[in-house]
């Protein structure tokens, strides 16, 4: 698992990367009440705003961590956005992206480095 400074986690599953936000991020955000997901089949570039999440407190943007094609989104979040609070690194994932340049993953932190960052 890799981590971004924006508190996203990236998990490689075969030739796609699953993206979500960390438990640390959900704790900071509070109860999540709305998630707007990208269109499946769309191509995104690194740092594009791909997901909007709204918590009881505020709206936040989630940026695409890498270039690629959105191949699947977690539709369950549309009706039940609290899944992200309940299981941030499991059922609360946002989207799966097929990387166009897998080497971009090398830019990101491993778990030890991420834990050091949030401490």
């Amino acid at each position, binding site marked *: 698992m890799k981590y971004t400074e924006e508190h996203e986690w990236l998990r490689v599953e075969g030739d796609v990367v699953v993206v979500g936000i960390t438990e640390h991020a959900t704790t900071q955000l*509070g*109860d999540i*009440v*709305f998630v707007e997901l990208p269109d499946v089949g769309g191509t995104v570039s690194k740092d594009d705003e791909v997901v909007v999440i*709204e918590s*009881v*407190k*505020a709206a936040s943007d989630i940026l695409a961590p890498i270039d690629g094609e959105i191949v699947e989104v977690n539709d369950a979040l*549309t009706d039940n956005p*609290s899944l992200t609070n309940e299981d941030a690194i499991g059922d609360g994932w946002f989207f799966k992206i097929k990387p166009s340049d897998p080497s971009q993953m090398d830019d990101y932190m491993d778990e030890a480095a991420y834990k050091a960052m949030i401490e």
Partner: protein
Amino acid sequence: MSDLLQTPLHDLHVRLGAKMVPFAGYSMPVQYGLGVMKEHLHTRAKAGLFDVSHMGQVIVTGDNPALALEALIPVDIVGLAEDRQRYGFFTNEAGGINDDLMLANRGDHIFVVVNAACKDADIAHMKAHLEPAVQITPITDRALLALQGPAAEAVLSTLDPAAAEMNFMDVATLSLNGAECWVSRSGYTGEDGYEVSVPNGQAAALAQVLLDHEDVEPIGLGARDSLRLEGGLCLYGHDIDTETTPVQAALTWAIQKVRRTGGDREGGFPGADIIFAEMASGAARKRVGLRPEGRAPMREGVPLFATDEGGAQIGAITSGGFGPTVEGPVAMGYVTADLAKPDTVVYGELRGKRLPLTITKMPFTPANFKR
């Protein structure tokens, strides 16, 4: 952060694990361990305890303080029965609202509770206009707690059975956990409940005794905001301010007949001419409740339009968020008078898209007051 004021419950908040934030010059709990959503739902299901000690408590004494206050507030205060409470507001010369407040007739004085952010200005305003005929005394040696929710009566009655005898908007002096408390049966959540003014030195102990009850949880400012929004209650500085008149704000119900045109004590408050003219001919804009379609919350500042593209802006959201009891987004805001009818659809511009909202009667959740 060191220049922030603390309420007498500060140590209790910290011990309970509250997330403290700056609010109106005070360090206040925005949420506790349950989080905003669960705190909100707990208050509607059982009872929540809020620290609202940052609010201003003021006593007005002297010769007919009720009549004196009517020079600043367009409300029937003279006719307010002893040990009854009423909602009101200070108006300005332009007919706008300087602050909203609660007034209680305590026999030999009027007890006033005002908003934290406005309290210094309110006290100066009252002193400047009303002294020395009456005396304005800020009460700084008392904390203010709110116990809100359907279980509030049963909980407070364990400390003084007289709590159960009170009706909505009654006030009384009760002995709670050995403290002489000034209690009103009112609040800011749309639920039955009480607000309790308690001496500073006895506040933390009273709060702890209430929290020891299995039905009571501590509730932060986050849920206080979502509760009052579902309850259709205005937040000063957002839904009402110095630019909004009571007519625009749909608060004319708070101006009793005796203070209106043709009443025995008609006018005599700042901005009366402007407010009466608007009452007679209608205001150009109105505060309304709004239900966004879908799940996306629309917050303060979102511009409103009559159509899904083009056209001039017809209003804006002044408060908005997610309503945990409604299980969806709720908002209030101002729209032009021609659109201010229930079931009218307007459009809010959110992230470059216009999304529909339906004008809806408030409260969004049924009020559960003990009438």
